[in-house]
């Protein structure tokens, strides 16, 4: 059975702090790992990581994957109140053809206080 463990489960910081969110996984036929941000409604896509050691960046957010140690981290620098959300990690398992199935972690609830 595929497993995804995110840590911490919740985190409270002040604006301007830097945070690191962790995701470890055990997934058969691993293809890639996705990070989503979920505010009040739909999860919105942040990153897809397929190769180890290659950092992906988008503004103040960055993420990296280690396929040997089976984990990924999501960094947010200079946090803002708008970063408050649940961050979901989802490794993708190859299901044949072009299809893939996501297994979601429970998420990290990040609260950024002014």
């Amino acid at each position, binding site marked *: 059975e595929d497993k995804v463990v995110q840590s911490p489960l919740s985190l409270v910081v002040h604006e301007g702090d830097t945070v690191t969110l962790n995701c470890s996984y055990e997934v058969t036929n691993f293809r890639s790992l996705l990070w989503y941000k979920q505010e009040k409604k*739909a999860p919105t896509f942040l990153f897809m990581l397929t190769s180890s050691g290659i950092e992906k960046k988008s503004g103040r957010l960055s993420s990296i994957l280690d396929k040997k140690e089976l984990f990924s981290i999501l960094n947010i620098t200079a946090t803002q109140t708008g970063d408050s959300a649940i961050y979901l990690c989802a490794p993708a398992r190859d299901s044949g053809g072009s*299809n893939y*199935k996501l*297994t979601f972690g429970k998420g990290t609830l990040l609260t950024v206080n002014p």
Partner: protein
Amino acid sequence: NAGVTQTPKFRILKIGQSMTLQCAQDMNHNYMYWYRQDPGMGLKLIYYSVGAGITDKGEVPNGYNVSRSTTEDFPLRLELAAPSQTSVYFCASSQGRRGQPQHFGDGTRLSIL
């Protein structure tokens, strides 16, 4: 851009009632998915479809049915609602090409009383 549209946004059902959650996407995506999200838990895959006329079970299919008669629509049917089906339901779609992520609708919050 409409993306993935889910209706209704909220619904309260009585035990034993049935209903259909609607999902439509306008991105011409072949792949569509239904998930449920319970408080403090990640999303669990209920059913998915790789194209019109093709559906398959996910991790938690019991109590649900789906159909995919067109590329755009992927409704989820609850036949005999049970309290355990109280959850937030998300529909998602993707192109199915490597490197393309799943895009989610805003969800349907369903309560079974």
